[in-house]
């Protein structure tokens, strides 16, 4: 098979998602050019950036054949911590560090239970999700963190600068992770452990350590995502982050990451995040009732997975 045919065959899913996204943009360009106004584009992308960072972390976890449904609560706690630290007058770099460190700590807690005690990750993160979310509600009783110093919103750089920081931050994280997953041996270990834990062990890799580090990384990334999202507003809402875990998993699955581990790359996830993020504004601009957003997201997830399932069954029959 010629080289390009191999590339298409191997990256069928990522390319098909990008194609669907391209078609959507085309339709919008024709019917509602307003979608591409600088302001609207910026708002959509800044809203999608934190989800992209979280989805990258989730890709790592799923490739390692685990899952983390507690990142929604981690996101809320990290935003709250960032808000409280800023309100206490600490400079923004310290606030940033605080958010990322607290995310990493929560990730480490999950990792210790999953890798250390060998508990199933879906049940561990289910428990920590409920516990952290309710603990936050109990302590804050739903109260916003208000009267934040001026240098909190948009890092004090004003809306343009702030949005710039968020987008560059997300792109930077995405770039680093793409390189790490391709060129860093630790990145490849994640694929190996996800593909076949026993073979990885026989190849001299320590699966427990890799699993633990993966959970710490997603925690840190969610902390960063929480920070970049919090600075979009002048106060911090304790209900933020609800449903983030499902958005991240959906983006990863649509982007071609196999839930059974060992397969998937970040470019597909980027296409998945952008596609999911642009449904809501697209509906508004296409004068369609905005309530259809969640139904369409669900339909896209099912379609992507069904096409994949049908393809592998066809392949299995020939192979």
């Amino acid at each position, binding site marked *: 098979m010629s080289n390009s045919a191999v590339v298409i065959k191997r990256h069928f899913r990522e390319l098909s998602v990008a194609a669907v996204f391209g078609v959507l943009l085309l339709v919008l360009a024709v019917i509602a050019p307003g979608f591409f106004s600088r302001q609207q584009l910026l708002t959509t992308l800044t809203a999608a950036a934190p989800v992209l960072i979280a989805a990258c972390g989730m890709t790592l976890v799923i490739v390692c054949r685990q899952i983390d449904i507690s990142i929604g609560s981690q996101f809320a706690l990290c935003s709250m911590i960032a808000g409280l630290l800023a309100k206490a007058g600490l400079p923004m770099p310290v606030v940033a560090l605080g958010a990322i460190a607290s995310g990493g700590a929560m990730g480490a807690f999950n990792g210790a239970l999953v890798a250390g005690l060998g508990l*199933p990750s879906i*049940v561990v993160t*289910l428990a920590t999700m*409920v*516990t952290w979310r309710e603990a936050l509600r109990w302590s804050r009783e739903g109260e916003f963190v208000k009267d934040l110093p001026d240098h909190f919103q948009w890092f004090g750089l004003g809306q343009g600068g702030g949005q710039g920081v968020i987008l560059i931050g997300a792109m930077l994280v995405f770039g680093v992770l793409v390189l790490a997953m391709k060129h860093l041996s630790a990145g490849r270990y994640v694929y190996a452990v996800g593909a076949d834990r026993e073979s990885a062990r026989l190849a001299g890799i320590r699966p427990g350590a890799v699993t633990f580090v993966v959970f710490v990384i997603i925690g840190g990334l969610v902390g960063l995502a929480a920070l970049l999202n919090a600075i979009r507003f002048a106060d911090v809402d304790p209900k933020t982050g609800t449903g983030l875990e499902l958005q991240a998993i959906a983006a990863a699955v649509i982007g071609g990451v196999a839930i059974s581990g060992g397969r998937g790359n970040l470019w597909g996830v980027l296409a998945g995040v952008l596609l999911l993020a642009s449904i809501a504004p697209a509906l508004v601009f296409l004068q369609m009732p905005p309530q*259809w957003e969640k139904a369409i997201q669900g339909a896209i997830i099912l379609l992507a997975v069904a096409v994949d399932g*049908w393809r592998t069954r066809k392949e299995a029959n020939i192979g």
Partner: protein
Amino acid sequence: MTMSQAKSNWSWSWLRRLEALLVIVLVMELLIFSRTGTNFATRENMFETIKLSVEIGLLALVMTPVILTGGIDLSVGSLLALCAVGFGKFWRDAGLSWPLAAALTLGLGSLGGGLNALLITRLRLPPLIVTLGTFSLFRGLAEAITQGVDNFTGFPEDFLAFGQGYYGGVIPAQVPIFLVVAVMVWLLVHRTTFGRSFRAIGFSPEGARYAGLPVPQRMAIAYLLSGVATALAAMIYVARVGQAKADAGAGYELLAITAVVLGGTSIFGGVGTVTGTLLGVAALAVLKNGLQLSDQPSELAGILTGGLLLLALAGEAAMKKISARRGRLATLGASRGQSG
């Protein structure tokens, strides 16, 4: 969830240990709250607690066979909202009598369950992802039907009686319904070949197929049952609350899964009992009610639920390690006896 986690060591004895742990937790809850909660230890409050936990109880009951087959169903919460809103639409806008609307809603529930079953068994897709997709699809349809705003209220009195009425002034109307479904699910799982095949599929889908069990049909039954019971729970919810809105049942699927796992059912399938699930539901319900009557904020119940789940898991993992060590000693002893 590590698929390759050795399922073989989730043996029967492990399950009984977790149920014993749960009974002790339940008894402790009853004793503590009867001291701290005012009017906790009254017959009326007991029935009130049961009444408030019927919906989660129904979802947990039918989640048990699904998890027994090694699958999972994240879409029950959203399907509950879609059925509630559907019931409202059938009754108010289509002008049907509420019993007919109820029948159609049960049909809607089985359609939802059927969609999950079709994708999981026909295309052999991972249940987590399929039900994640239907989680968004059902909630989205519920919001689309009500334009995210509309709210169905003012249901007829005799329908509301199912959620708010009492038999003989004491027994809430939905308790008998719950008991009937509980007994039926218990019989299905523990006393029929369906239950036996759920376990076999959970332990080893390949093994079940080689043993001549119709694996796809049996898994489909589990997901269909989940859909129908969710529709029933939706109508009891609407009767109890007196309104149907698109945000109904948010988070119910996680509560149901928590109750099932707390009850000793392994998330990898095979091991688990309906009585364990009922104990799990009871433990969560008593915890929530007891805390509220002890003038504690309701969030504390959420924290303790998560803590209880982690405790049960870590405790059970520790017990497994102890029994594995004891097991190794036992087999050495046994092997001497056996190969003699």
